[in-house]
């Protein structure tokens, strides 16, 4: 049981930490739509666009995308595991 969970976490780390360097840099479907129609002109700068890890980089340097990915994996895992663990039904009937 433990083995499966550790394996699953490891796969996520590998994807975010390594495979992320091979991701396409082209706009996604929604971005492409708003760019081609001119809607994108109305887009506002993200309030946190100058933050350390903005755009999955480190200080704007996307050499560190993998590092940002690993950080994201750790943060999402901690937050979601914490939330779901608190929400779960306690198996107290044993």
């Amino acid at each position, binding site marked *: 049981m433990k083995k499966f969970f550790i394996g699953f976490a490891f796969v996520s780390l590998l994807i975010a930490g390594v495979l992320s360097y091979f991701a396409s840099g082209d706009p996604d479907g929604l971005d492409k739509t708003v760019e081609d*129609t001119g809607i994108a002109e109305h887009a506002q700068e993200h309030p946190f666009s100058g933050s350390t890890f903005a755009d999955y980089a480190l200080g704007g340097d996307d050499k560190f995308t993998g590092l940002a990915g690993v950080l994201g*994996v750790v943060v999402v895992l901690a937050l*979601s595991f914490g939330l779901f663990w608190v929400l779960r039904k306690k198996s107290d009937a044993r």
Partner: protein
Amino acid sequence: MHMSDGLLNAPVSIVFLVVAAVGVGFALVKARADLDDRTAPMAGLVATFIFAVQMINFPILPGASGHLLGGALAAILVGPWVGALCVTIVLVVQALLFADGGLTALGANVTNMALIGTAAGFVVAVALRRFAEKGKGGLAAVAFISAFVNTLLAATGFIVEYAIGGAGGVEIGKVALLMWGLHALIGIGEGLITAVTVTSVASIRPDLVHLLKGSRKPLEVRS
């Protein structure tokens, strides 16, 4: 599919912040029934996996890419309520930590990807459950179709939001055509990733696939 701030006007953004809050609140209440000592860690890992895979934009056309949304994947593995929470957590972390997806747009983004996408994926998966129970091929097909529909309906969420109160006054037919066309292609990628992921989990730990729950003889202790 993370929209920036400013693409929708302020009132519509606020309306969808409320819609998202109500939806997520409801999911928080309903999710409890699906979470126990075994499924809670699984749910955390599903959220983590979706975050990781969302980083991988795959090319669909020259100059355009797509990425997993994850609603159907989450719904099939951990159920619709927990699944919606998984995608929501991913979107919140992306908006706050990585400046990916606007803050006033967060409501609309959660509505499209976490609520509509997950609900659509789940409804389709449940409707086709008897095929999923037939074996690996059936499960893969059901996962593919659910994920494809989840992508198209999440895209439709943006079209509807833009029609209600989008910036720029672009003809809605033009927006719809582009969104649906591009997301029909992205949906194929979403379908493939979801099918591979779900069948992989099912071959190692079928007991952790929410959609298949109860399909085998349950080890129920009758008192």
